[in-house]
């Protein structure tokens, strides 16, 4: 049959033609540009507007940045060097570098302590942030708060060591009684820790000179370091409190639930600045007469309360998002409330809450600038106060604020990028 067919048609191609190259307008850069920048007149118009905006921004910023002066000692000198040319006076950054980072009262021969504490912070945070690092590094993380306190505030090393000893004693007491019930364990923890601290107070009081660094009072902290201290301390403290508050709010016990609800809603309903006012002028009335807490500690208390309420709400969202079956499965395995929460509920709820927690952390870190309003000299306070008010640098707005924007952007943007990375790492469902 095929013969007849081949005879009936005049010509049959017996081999495939080679594929032709796609037209130049459909591949490579040209196609991308056509598709993404000049598709239709509206799109083209947008592109033109966008290019104009970018041009204006660059034309304004680049000469100013590239023509900047980095080595003079006052604005007047800067203007002399520039002689009317465009350029920023970045020498304010180099000249006041230490003030911007560490405040203006920290003894300058002790800066190494702050730098060391900052570097160690990286080492301490690493095993928490990156799961594949050796777990033994967590020991250092546990030691870090005490080490950092010693480095930053100075004084005898006995005080932080005794504080640590209290926690260790509490931990062993908890381990001994844990098998009875978690509540008993917690009670034992509190008692053992309190006793150790009480004894420790005498010991560190007896030898105030042992391995002592020059003590620095809290009011001398300042600059970006103060933002870092407040941010790191308050976020780490508010996580456990936030978890407790969230569990309390979800609990079946009406009294505990309502205590938590009122606390959370009250804190979330008022601006942070009113809480800072409380720390500044009101809190002292509620503390025992004769005691005087540092302003920085009062601020830490209030910011931690603030952040805990927000973190509690985030974690409550995570708890609510867990399917009911998880709770029931834990019950059917015979786990009690503490075990179920620790082993089944919290790991999943926290995983769901990671983006929210990071948002709160970033927000909190940004909010630490508010302490400048109650006259603490953090980065913003340093810029507004001692630097812009000085005769040498009066009027150098752009360079200083640009630097502040840059610092905060770097920190906050990296945190949010990290959280996105972590979310991808923890994703166990197949979507």
């Amino acid at each position: 049959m095929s013969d007849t067919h081949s005879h009936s048609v005049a010509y049959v191609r017996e081999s495939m033609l080679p594929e032709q190259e796609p037209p130049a307008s459909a591949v490579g850069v040209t196609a991308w540009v056509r598709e993404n920048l000049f598709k239709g007149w509206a799109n083209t118009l947008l592109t033109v507007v966008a290019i104009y905006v970018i041009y204006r921004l660059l034309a304004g910023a680049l000469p100013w940045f590239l023509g900047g002066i980095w080595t003079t000692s006052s604005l007047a000198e800067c203007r002399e060097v520039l002689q009317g040319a465009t350029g920023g006076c970045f020498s304010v950054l180099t000249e006041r570098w230490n003030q911007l980072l560490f405040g203006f009262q920290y003894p300058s021969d002790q800066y190494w302590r702050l730098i060391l504490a900052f570097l160690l912070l990286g080492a301490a945070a690493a095993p928490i942030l990156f799961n594949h690092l050796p777990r033994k590094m967590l020991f250092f993380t546990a030691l870090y708060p005490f080490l950092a306190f010693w480095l930053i505030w100075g004084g005898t090393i006995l005080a932080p060591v005794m504080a640590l000893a209290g926690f260790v004693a509490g931990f062993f007491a908890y381990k001994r009684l844990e098998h009875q019930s978690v509540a008993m364990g917690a009670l034992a923890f509190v008692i053992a820790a309190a006793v150790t601290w009480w004894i420790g107070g005498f010991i560190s009081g007896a030898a105030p000179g042992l391995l002592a660094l020059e003590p620095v009072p809290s009011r001398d902290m300042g600059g970006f370091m103060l933002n870092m201290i407040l941010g790191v301390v308050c976020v780490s403290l508010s996580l456990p409190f936030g978890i407790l508050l969230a569990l309390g709010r979800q609990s079946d016990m009406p009294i505990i639930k309502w205590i938590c609800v009122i606390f959370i809603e009250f804190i979330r309903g008022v601006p942070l600045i009113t809480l800072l006012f409380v720390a500044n002028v009101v809190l002292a009335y509620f503390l025992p007469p004769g005691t005087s807490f540092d302003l920085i500690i009062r601020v830490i208390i209030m910011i931690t309360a603030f952040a805990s309420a927000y973190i509690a709400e985030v974690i409550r969202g995570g708890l609510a998002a867990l399917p009911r079956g998880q709770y029931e499965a834990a019950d059917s395995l015979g786990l009690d409330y503490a075990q179920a929460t620790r082993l089944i509920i919290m790991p999943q709820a926290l995983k769901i809450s990671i983006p929210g927690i990071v948002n709160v952390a970033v927000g909190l870190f940004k909010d630490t600038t508010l302490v400048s309003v109650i006259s603490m000299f953090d980065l913003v306070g340093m810029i507004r106060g001692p630097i812009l008010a000085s005769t040498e640098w009066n009027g150098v707005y752009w360079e200083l604020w640009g630097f502040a924007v840059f610092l905060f952007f770097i920190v906050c943007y990296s945190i949010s990028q990290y959280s996105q990375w972590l979310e991808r790492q923890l994703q166990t469902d197949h979507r």
Partner: protein
Amino acid sequence: MSTLSDPPAESFRLSQLINDTRYRSITFQFLALILMVFAMAYLGWNLVQNLAAAGLNISYDFLGEPAGYDINQTLIDYDSRSSHWRAAMVGVLNTLLVAVLGCIMATILGVFVGVLRLSPNWLVRKLMSIYVEIFRNVPVLIWILIIMAIFVAVLPQPRDFRGDTPEATMLFDLFAFTGRGFYLPGPGFSAEWAAGGTGWLIVIAIIIAATIGTRKLGAWASKTQEATGLRPTTWYITLAIWLVPLLLAFVVMGLTWEIPALKGFNFQGGIFMRNSLIALWFALSIYTAAFIAENVRAGILAVSKGQTEAAASLGLRPKRIMNLVVLPQALRVIIPPLISQYLNLTKNSSLAIAVGYMDLTGTLGGITLNQTGRAIECVLLLMLFYLMISLGISAIMNVYNNAVKLKER
């Protein structure tokens, strides 16, 4: 030969309070309550002792005393002889003013940016995400201070408008943008009986009436449509409902515009918006808009493409697809976070104190507190005010959420 014995009678033993989950919660709650009461009592006792030591008491009498300080931006009559309570009210209104202005501008800007972030144009998309990232990741306090600095540095001072060849001119001879603030034409009423607040009350009443009228009209039109299948044309009636009474009222009351004019070293007349108000307004709007843009983007992305396609396959036209299918679903995702952004903006407006705008934090929590030394009372009132606003907005949000939530079985 076994007899069934009764199960052992349930007798309550004290150890059940710790070991029996049925009773343990009562123990815990009791302990929590005791602890709570003790903590409260302890703090209260400290307070009493501290107040006694300082020779103070808790009293709100200071609110009736003359404030003795001036406020440079007020919506209601105020001078330095007015009471502290009046100053606080000025502050409340100023807070609400900047919050409302900020919410409006942040919404407009945020929706605009959020839509552009989904634009097919790569360059615009990138530009918008840079904007969002930069503004979201830097404290709002810094933005407020930067914009304030820009205002003072870039805009001309009122004195630059003087002389025969001034360095700066007014826009259309109506608006003057100076580093000290914006001067705008202010409406007023020439009829004597409408000169005070009365005229504005009448205008507000007319607007409310017109809103109700328009809604009634819409309901009537829908009813007619359901009955007859034809929707009556109503747009000119709507227009009339809105415009005719308003125009009539303006003519009767004699609407006049007061144009700001340069007198001496400053502008006089019209509406004056201080630089601190404008800097705060812009900064809060731009900052919040970055967050709103993300919400809008997420909301639009949350409506799956299948919805649009399904609607199209039913034969709906693009405009109706947008109005009937996409928007209702997107809004359900967008509005709750949008309202909480409004709340954040209102709370952030308390940063006004950094640029010297006299909102409630500036008056009651600032100067009044410092002058009278009544820290506890002032801070308490301040917190109560913000708490009221927050709880009010949360209540509205709950009503809305209940109205739009998916009606499931």
